[in-house]
């Protein structure tokens, strides 16, 4: 049976991971290649490398990093963060990334999704959507209003979130990486209502992101009809949850998972 997926997200800047980690027995937790290999060994299903470098050197260091991760790691990974040019997408895929995630560039130019999907195949194109709830006092999930934001949730993109996800999938995105900026960092659980609504609106897999703090949060977001995959960063990096422990918990809770070997 097709399993639900657990995805660890590594934030990198100038070729180094930026969020701290306290992995024991890992000599250099700032080395994204070592960290990625460690997660793969522990049984994570996929990885996302999110590059937040904002220098002219970005392109070169990112391609080098992708090559090094692809050389070491035997599971799929996605690379994202400020990627827009077709030539950059091509270079990253040719360097060994399985998928490239796009965010602000496709909001500025939605036709880029069509172009990239035709050229590289939908399976390689992930559209990342950062959504924020604009009416926190909504009476029920059906009344929630979600808008797309850019620049770390500071700048409204002028798009309603569910409609934008649907458009991205129709244009050829092979997967939607949906982050709730309203839940990110809270550790109170994922945005279940928003994620279900997006999942029902698109025919492609949906990765939920933002809000993971404890094992039951993963169980809830990986129920049928909610998310196909759950992404987290700090709960894994800081060792609050081990991949194996979380997978065993989810299997016991009836979530289909690739067991840890």
């Amino acid at each position, binding site marked *: *049976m*097709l*399993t*639900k*997926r657990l995805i660890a997200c590594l934030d990198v800047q100038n070729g180094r991971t930026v969020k701290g980690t306290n992995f024991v027995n890992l000599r250099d937790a700032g080395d994204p290649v070592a960290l990625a290999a460690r997660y*793969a060994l522990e*049984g994570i*299903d996929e990885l996302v490398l999110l590059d937040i470098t904002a220098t002219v050197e970005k392109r070169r260091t990112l391609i080098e990093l992708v*090559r090094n991760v*692809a*050389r*070491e790691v*035997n*599971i*799929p990974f996605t690379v994202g963060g400020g990627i827009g040019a077709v030539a950059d997408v091509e270079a990253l*895929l*040719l*360097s*060994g990334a*399985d998928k490239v995630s796009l965010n602000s560039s496709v909001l500025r130019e939605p036709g880029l999704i069509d172009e990239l999907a*035709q050229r*590289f*195949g*939908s*399976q*390689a194109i992930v559209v990342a959507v950062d959504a924020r709830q604009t009416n926190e006092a909504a009476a029920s999930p059906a009344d929630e209003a979600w808008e797309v934001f850019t620049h770390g949730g500071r700048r409204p993109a002028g798009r309603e979130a569910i409609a934008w996800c649907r458009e991205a999938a129709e244009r050829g995105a*092979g*997967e939607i990486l949906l982050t709730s900026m309203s839940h990110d960092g809270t550790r109170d659980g994922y945005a279940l209502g928003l994620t279900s609504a997006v*999942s*029902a609106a698109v*025919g*492609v*897999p*949906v990765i939920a992101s933002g809000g993971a703090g404890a094992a039951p949060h993963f169980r809830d977001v990986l129920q*049928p*009809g909610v998310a*196909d*995959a759950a992404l987290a960063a700090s709960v894994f990096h800081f060792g609050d949850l081990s991949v194996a422990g979380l997978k065993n918990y989810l299997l016991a809770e009836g979530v289909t998972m*690739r*067991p*840890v*070997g």
Partner: protein
Amino acid sequence: MNIAVIDYQGGNVQSVLFALERLGMNATLTSDPDVIRGADRVLFPGEGEASSAMRALRAAGLDKVLPTLTQPFLGICLGMQLLGRHSQEGPAGGTELLGMLPFDVVRFTPPDAAHKVPHMGWNNLHDLQTPLFAGLGSAGELNPQSDSNQAPVAPSLLPTAADYVYFVHSYYAPVGDYTIAQASYPAEVPFSAGVRYRNFYGVQFHVEKSGPVGEQILKNFLTADLA
């Protein structure tokens, strides 16, 4: 050992080269028919869309070369699908494929909104045959030189980590006499996860991205007697 990885602008070949490198093997990335013919093993990766892949193969003259090869040959993902007769993928009526194996590639038709296309992620293999899959399977049992009469793994036996491989595809080859491994999507609908005709093998999943299970299969391909 001489390993050729076929280069026809068919997508992410780098991952296949790295996977071989992790096994300590160097491969030649090539579209040269003589180099391909002279190799001990041939890997045929593929990603993207069927009609453009076929166009690239024809442009390189490889559509005539591949069917004449006699050494163990492994198509991966789209590289497996291209071994068939016809695919629904492609403009106006689909795409004529290489016709080396007797299957037609069709699109997944999900029964409900919970089943997404592409079929993306880790799924378990079952009904494994041939030494390509030796050392895999539930309960860690070996699958030795088996034939098509081999009993399927008992359904009561839950899949273990050793059964799971990584898939990303929207089209599939149905199960037939050529099938040497199955996976199911939705849960009750099996499709061909592996195929074989003579020396031509194909796997639908990404053997190069399937963790230790993928590495075992790749190792089997390089070392087992697959004639």
